[in-house]
């Protein structure tokens, strides 16, 4: 999508070449990039600790916690659906791995694997039910949201007798899994959590898939016009179910990060409300709520804005109570900016 073809043989003199600026402005993520730059400059001035290089790692870590899930949620939104169960599905995955390994006294890796299967199954169920019933994804995933929220607490209490899963930190395979999902390393004096590396890799792969593969083309098509996509032979069912399963996969990954960063314990009530943060990141990043338009990189920038604002408020010494209000304003501003920029760019 980077270059524009204007073959001289067929040039139509009614249409002048679009300037580089206009082409840049028509990218879906441009609004979020401008927003991120403004917020960066704002907090660099307003919050002195924001300038310290050490804190960069912390800010990126906050962004990555949302950003990893924002990847599939952006793809899903471009595909015309959204998933309200994404937040609690993360907790479900972490709990499953922890409880399974502890209760059956098996290697941690087996628990991790079972959690992966369950997460993919939840995604597949969401997608299947959606396609089978034709109900809006809002209703279907609202249903799964409550089911999972209830099961998380009920099953945890049943198995461990408490509201959190039993600690698995002393079990076989814990250290190995922790190294993959929740380790950290030093890079020029900055502590970098491994999830940041994973996040960047996931964004790069997903952006490539979306813009440069057949699957990506199909994702845009099923979100833009599912009937049209079906008529030209795109397997709409498979694409949508696949997208929900991608949400399942990343919910698993985030759930494992949660499990291993908290020394093998997951609180069963966690995750409620996170689904909206993922959706906000995607929308701020320029994904159209109605589908067919958007970008994975935009979703990542949306998550970065979230991380900067969350810590910026703290570093500036303000009461963190303001954070949510700030977030809401950000969402509205981003949506309006995206709309205006898009209309402007297309009018040129």
């Amino acid at each position, binding site marked *: 999508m980077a270059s524009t073809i204007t073959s001289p043989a067929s040039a139509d003199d009614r249409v002048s070449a679009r300037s580089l600026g206009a082409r840049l402005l028509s990218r879906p993520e441009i609004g979020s990039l401008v927003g991120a730059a403004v917020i960066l400059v704002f907090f660099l001035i307003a919050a002195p600790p924001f300038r310290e290089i050490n804190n960069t790692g912390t800010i990126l870590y906050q962004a990555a916690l949302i950003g990893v899930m924002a990847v599939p949620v952006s793809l899903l939104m471009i595909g015309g659906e959204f998933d309200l169960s994404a937040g609690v599905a993360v907790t479900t995955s972490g709990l499953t791995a922890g409880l399974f390994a502890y209760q059956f006294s098996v290697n941690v890796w087996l628990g991790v694997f079972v959690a992966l299967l369950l997460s993919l199954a939840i995604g597949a169920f969401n997608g299947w039910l959606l396609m089978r019933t034709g109900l809006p994804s809002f209703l279907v995933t609202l249903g799964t949201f409550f089911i999972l929220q209830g099961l998380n607490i009920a099953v945890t209490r049943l198995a461990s007798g408490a509201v959190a899963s039993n600690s698995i930190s002393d079990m076989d395979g814990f250290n190995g899994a922790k190294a993959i999902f929740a380790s950290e390393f030093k890079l020029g004096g900055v502590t970098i959590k491994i999830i940041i590396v994973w996040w960047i890799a996931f964004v790069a792969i997903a952006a490539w898939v979306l813009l440069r593969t057949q699957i990506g*083309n199909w994702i845009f098509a099923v979100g833009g016009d599912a009937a049209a996509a079906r008529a030209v032979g*795109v397997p709409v069912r498979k694409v949508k179910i696949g997208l929900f399963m991608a949400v399942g996969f990343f919910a698993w990954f985030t759930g494992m990060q949660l499990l291993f960063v908290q020394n093998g314990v997951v609180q069963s009530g966690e995750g409620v409300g996170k689904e909206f943060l993922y959706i906000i990141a995607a929308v701020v990043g320029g994904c159209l709520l109605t589908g067919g338009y958007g970008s994975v990189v935009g979703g990542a920038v949306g998550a970065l804005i979230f991380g900067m604002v969350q810590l910026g408020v703290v570093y500036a010494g303000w009461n963190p109570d303001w954070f949510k209000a700030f977030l809401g304003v950000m969402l509205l501003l981003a949506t309006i900016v995206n709309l205006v920029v898009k209309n402007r760019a297309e009018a040129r």
Partner: protein
Amino acid sequence: MTTTESFADEASAAPNTPIVLLEDIGKSYGNINALRGVSLSVRQGEITCVLGDNGAGKSTLIKIIAGLHDYTSGRMSVNGEERHFGSPREALDSGIATVYQDLALAPLMSVWRNFFLGNEITKGPFRQLDAAKMKRIAQEELTKMGISIPNLEQPVGKLSGGQRQCVAIARAIHFGAKVLILDEPTAALGVNQSGVVLKYVVRARDAGIGVIFITHNPHHAYLVGNHFVVLKLGRVALDTHRSEITLEQLTTEMAGGSELEALSHELRSVNPELVVENESQRQEDT
């Protein structure tokens, strides 16, 4: 006005056998018979016009040929082989492409992405999209059809109705359509744009494609059609060749013949001036 039997004779006598042949096709939804005993043949390089009022069964007929619905009675053969399509993909693979009224284009996607949707060209071990090649081919194909769209990155939604029709038709032809079904391609267009689209319909025919042109406009049908089938309440009301009918006859037949006469008689008995007078009187009274 030929009957279905003589039509079948004519079809077998013709040098090129029909690509798609419908014999006595019926489709019922529960107790509703949407189509009854419809026969139709599509030959290479011929335009078969299917005319009919709203609810005559035109849409049901094309949905059967396009693979969106299965038929419940009769026989459909493609290249001499009896077929029941399970999905539009199967119909496409048999060389039957449909350009729907709503065009089957994703409005927010660029022209080249829409052009290759479902038939993307990939390269390399990771099956990456070959964007440059796809843009080049799309541009060539569109130019071949005489359509000028300088910026293929433009979203399809920004094109005019006629341009969108042409993109959809060019796409169907490029992907090896032997039979092209056009569902009311001129219904939503102005006079000029309709003319442009009709020109492409003729070009498609000249390229050796069998065209099924669905319309409720007898003027557009008569401009390009070789063969005319008029549907009425799910049955074939007229099935004739161009040489056997005039535009006036076709229009009359299309409009419902005797029904139109009754309507014009009824309308003649209404005195428009009387209505106006009554209206003005009523206004004075109040």
